[in-house]
């Protein structure tokens, strides 16, 4: 084969496997990115993120508190700076640039979001400690509105929308007021009932105090009467027994017979013969 043939073959082969040529790609990218602001900025931001992450790692491994604090503050500063670039990147993301595929164009906003998330994740000594929800007991259950304390970044506080009442908060406030009024009404009813009960209890107490000595008196008198009655009963029984005992009865009968006998005898004697 001639040299020309070999050259031609090599050219064809290269063209075929062009996309696997890294150096070539980079050159092309550089050529494209020369015009692509987005890519440039993206690369710059990525580099910054790497640097910040590095600093964060250092801060984590440091023992000295002062150094840790300094490093953390440095990390925070860089994060803030990078965050400030994000809006610019978002704007560039939607701009149409020659030389890149449609899919890449579409995926650029997502890339921006991902970048923002990565920035937030960098631990800077504040959020690292308090990423967990305060209600440790409910780990594993993620409620729609988890309550966290002290997770507000200073930047967030500066945003004007932060203190406005959202729909949720106004609704919540109204419901709270409504429930509070209903509770108050219920408590009023209970209070009235209790006052009546207290009054009745006091009156009953007084009435009982009034009647206790009366009942004691009545008790004594009845005891007396019962004792008298018992006495009388016993005496009555005695008397009746004395009157109607069998022995007395027989004696009575015998005496009566004797008297009748005597009367009969007298009669028979005195009858005119």
């Amino acid at each position, binding site marked *: 084969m001639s040299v020309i043939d070999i050259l031609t073959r090599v050219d064809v082969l290269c063209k075929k496997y062009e996309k696997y040529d890294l150096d070539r790609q980079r050159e092309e990218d550089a050529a494209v990115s020369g015009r692509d602001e987005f890519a440039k900025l993206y690369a710059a931001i990525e580099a910054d993120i790497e640097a910040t992450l590095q600093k964060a790692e250092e801060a984590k491994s440091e023992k000295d508190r002062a150094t840790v604090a300094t490093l953390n503050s440095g990390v925070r500063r860089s994060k803030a700076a990078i965050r400030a670039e994000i809006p610019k990147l978002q704007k560039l993301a939607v701009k149409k640039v020659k030389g890149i595929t449609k899919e890449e164009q579409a995926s650029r906003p997502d890339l921006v979001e991902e970048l923002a998330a990565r920035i937030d994740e960098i631990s800077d000594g504040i959020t690292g400690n308090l990423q967990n929800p305060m209600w440790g007991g409910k780990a594993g259950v993620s409620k729609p509105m988890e309550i966290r304390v002290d997770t507000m970044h200073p930047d967030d506080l500066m945003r004007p929308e932060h203190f406005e009442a959202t729909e949720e908060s106004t609704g919540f406030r109204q419901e709270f007021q409504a429930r509070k009024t209903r509770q108050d009404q219920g408590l009023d009813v209970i209070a*009235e009932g209790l006052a*009546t009960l207290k*009054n009745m209890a*006091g009156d009953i*107490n007084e009435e009982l*105090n009034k009647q206790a000595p009366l009942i004691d008196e009545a008790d004594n008198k009845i005891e007396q009467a019962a004792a008298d009655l018992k006495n009388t009963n016993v005496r009555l029984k005695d008397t009746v027994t004395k009157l109607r005992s069998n022995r007395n009865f027989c004696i009575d009968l015998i005496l009566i017979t004797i008297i009748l006998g005597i009367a009969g005898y007298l009669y028979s004697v005195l009858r005119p013969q």
Partner: protein
Amino acid sequence: MAESSKRPHSAPSLDPRLTHAHQLVRKADKLTTLSFFNWWPDWTQATPLYEQAATAYKLAKMLEEAKTCYEKAATGQERLSSPWTAGKHMESAGALAKELGRIDETVVLYRRASELFLECGKAQPSADVLGRGARAVEDESPEVAIRMYLDACAMLEEDGREQMAFDTYRAVVNLYIKLNRFKDAAALLVRWGQAADKCHATQSQCKAYLSAIIVHLYDEDLKQAQQCYNDCSQMDVFYKSDQGETAEKLLSAYGEESSDEIKHVVDSSYIIPHLDHMIVRLAKQLPKGELKTIFPVEPSDDKLNEDDLT
């Protein structure tokens, strides 16, 4: 019979009973009236006859005769030295006299009954009967009724049974309020509070004091009311009680001279509805009268002029 001709309405079935009653009375009279043949009145026999006749007359609604019979029966019992039964008969006679409409006689009979009970040494029934007598006559002659009530209270207090006197006090207060004698009513309420204090009936005591203050306020006498409150709050029991708090709120509302506040205190209070119903009626009408008249304009203190350095 001559008597039956006077009463054409009496049912024929009652007449034999009535005639029997007349016979009894005549027999009893014969036994008791002194005459040539009768040196000693025989009350032992006569009294039961009188009692029977009295019940018969009462059933027949012949009140006059029944009353007379009861009186005679009472005298009989008295002579038989049982003042208790005598008192009971007197009371029945008094009730009949009231139905006949003879108030003076009623009063006399009831008082006599109470004396008889006192002879037994029983103060409670004596006071009770005075109270019943007073209730009987209070419509016609309230003054006399008040006298009787107060005597009953005094009797019970002497005997050391103040707690029994509460009902009597209540009756007198209601009578006073009916007669619009508010100062007397308030004075009596304070006396009632004192009686309650003696027998440690704190609930009644505090209620009595609060009622006194309300009566004063109804009488448009704020100064008296405040004085009353000051006097009563000397007692710890009242000062710390719910009634004392209500009184304080009421007086401060008056102090602010706002009738809305006063009405609000009365309506929203849980204590005032549990007082005696007459007092509650008064309280609902507070503030009575123009507030300006209650708060007389004080003479200004111009005499103490700041610039006057003498």
